[in-house]
């Protein structure tokens, strides 16, 4: 009796399996990623550009970690040649078991490296901070020496002989820049259930950092004590900008806030349609803020009023703009680079790299450096947009 019934059930089971597999395969291509890919912007020092490339996107059903080494690369800015590269790996498997976890996991890096005193500092998604000799690529120290912190998304900053960074465990750490030793008064905790993805900004002896708990914190960079906190209606993951005694920061509540650097009082707030993801830039008492609603907002730094109507670039803007001379260079996610004249505030097309751009831009001596998700580093003339060289960094 059960033969036909079981044939039907077999058909159903097979159909279900096919649907699940096809569905997961489709979802794998639907932009949902299970493993971090990273990809930092570049940091320039002494004619060398340091960056961590993005890992190749993972495929498969969630157990495939991204391929690629996970590394820090030093590039000669004059000709685009590779000076050295060092692998960043962690021996701890990514989890998953059943043999699908690799013996070592490549480390995704999101935050820009920081350079000071002949060392390059870089924080990894594996929860470690590396200090690497900027000339040779040799590892100087790593923190923590044993085990790992929670993922480090924001980049480190160096000031007052210390390296500062925020961590996904909700804490702000400070380490001795030369030795990697922890500093008294740190880490500063914002709460056990909280996360910090923001890169800190330092002005004088004050450190400013945003947090998932919707607050902007101002800390004494010497002893880790809190000076003030400013609460918004959304999480803050973007890097604050400190300019003329005011801290400018975007929040997930779709507002750009101007907060007094000394007292934490709000000066003004500007509402957009989506998040401000990247750090804004300031030039000539004007704030230029790219937004995920495809627009660049040009605001008066004192009042927050719009200097010109918002400029629609046709694609979300997640990378931080840069100032090159009297031109603001802004890249949209779809890979189009615009130059915004600071005098007229009118945009002009500079270049189209044809690859998605998420990483912050950097500039030096009239050249713009852009690292795309296509794993290419492009060097463009800031005035003409002409490509000077490009280098594939995987």
């Amino acid at each position, binding site marked *: *009796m059960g033969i036909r019934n079981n044939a039907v059930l*077999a058909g159903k089971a097979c159909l*279900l399996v096919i649907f699940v597999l096809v*569905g997961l395969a489709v979802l794998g291509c639907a*932009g*949902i990623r299970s493993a971090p890919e990273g990809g930092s912007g570049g940091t320039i020092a002494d004619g060398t550009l340091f960056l961590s490339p993005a890992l190749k996107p993972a495929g498969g059903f969630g157990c495939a970690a991204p391929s690629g080494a996970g590394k820090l690369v030093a590039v000669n800015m004059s000709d685009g040649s590779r000076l050295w590269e060092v692998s960043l790996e962690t021996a701890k498997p990514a*989890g998953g078991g059943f043999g699908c976890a690799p013996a070592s996991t490549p480390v995704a890096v999101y935050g820009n490296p920081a350079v000071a005193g002949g060392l390059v500092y870089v924080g990894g998604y594996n929860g470690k901070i590396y200090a690497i000799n900027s000339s040779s690529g040799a590892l100087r120290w790593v923190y923590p020496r044993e085990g790992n912190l929670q993922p480090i998304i924001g980049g480190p900053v160096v000031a007052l002989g210390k390296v500062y960074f925020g961590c996904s465990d909700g804490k702000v750490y400070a380490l001795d820049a030369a030795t990697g030793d922890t500093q008294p008064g740190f880490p500063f905790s914002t709460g056990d259930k909280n996360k910090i993805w923001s890169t800190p900004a330092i002005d004088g002896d004050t450190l400013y950092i945003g947090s998932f708990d919707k607050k902007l914190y101002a800390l004494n960079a010497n002893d880790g004590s809190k000076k003030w906190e400013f609460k918004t209606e959304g999480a803050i993951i973007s890097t604050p900008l400190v300019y003329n005694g005011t801290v400018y920061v975007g929040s997930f*509540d779709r507002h750009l806030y101007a907060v007094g650097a000394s007292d934490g009082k709000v000066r003004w707030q500007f509402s957009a349609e989506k998040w401000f993801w990247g750090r804004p830039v300031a030039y000539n008492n004007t704030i230029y803020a790219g937004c995920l609603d495809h627009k660049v907002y040009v605001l008066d730094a004192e009042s927050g009023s719009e200097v010109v109507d918002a400029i629609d670039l046709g694609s979300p803007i997640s990378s931080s703009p840069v100032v090159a001379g009297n031109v603001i260079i802004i890249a949209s996610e779809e890979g189009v680079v615009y130059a915004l004249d600071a005098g007229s505030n009118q945009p002009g097309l500079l270049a189209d790299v044809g690859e998605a751009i998420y990483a912050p831009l950097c500039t030096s001596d009239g050249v713009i450096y852009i690292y795309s998700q296509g794993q290419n580093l492009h060097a463009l003339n800031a005035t003409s947009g002409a490509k000077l060289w490009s280098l594939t960094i995987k």
Partner: protein
Amino acid sequence: MNPWDLIILQPMLNSLIVLCNVLFNNFGLAIIALTIIVNGLMLLLTLKQIRASKAMQALQPKLTELQKKYAKDKEKLGKEQMRLYKESGVSPAGCLLPLVVQMPIWFALYQSIMRVMAVIPENLLGLSQYLYSWPVVYSTLPLQNKFLWLNLATGDTFLAILVGGTMWVQQKMVMTPPADPRQQTQSTMMLWMMPLMFAFLTMTFPSGLALFWVTSNIFRIGIQYFVTGWGGLVKPAPKKQVARDKKYKQRIAQVEQAPSGGADIVVPSSTQEEGLDYGDSGSKRQDRGGGYPKSPRAIRRQPRRGGGHRSKGG
């Protein structure tokens, strides 16, 4: 934005975020609530599918009969089968069609959970394009990934076992044990294949997704129970049945041989008269587990055949 994202994914994703806000910013509770709501909305389809499966099972004796009768004439067999389906009002596609319709909804729910979880910056960045411009949505993000002992962003072994276990129970409920040993092997393989596959996937996916699977499975087990009972989950025990029959007959004999001042009962001459119908193994309420009455007094009083009556005093 493509129609799929606009019509299905975006509303579901934003609902999940709002639910999270309403449910004390607890993402685990939001996943459970949305899974129940979505399954509730698809209840009619689910019931249709279960009933169609049940109707197919009920037709099996007749289908087997036809297969035997027209074993050598496939064309005739096909016609007779179609006629039987038509007369019985059963559609062979009735079991599969609702399943096919539900699949995209499950995928959308899966996508929503994975996207909203946004444990890595790439996913959080991508999430922004799916959000409605409701303040509640923006103020709720990013979501907390802690729920009970779980980090909803990482795999969990216990939850993987729970996913496999609940899926096995659900599968077992809809299956009837085949008589043919070869079919038995095939059936057993099918019974284990899906739960094991899902348990394995659960180990590698965030446990937020596993929470959705477990909730979905439990919901469907409940629905299945109300329509068909425990089904194949109740172990058929034909040997025990025979033994029980023997014991039952012995008891009847004892009662009938007892002196006239004995039990004040009338024992039915067959199990049919007492309303016992063993039926097919696995069918609902065929065996309530009570076995045969412990006390003769528990047996239902019935008029004696022939209209007679045995008085208490003899």
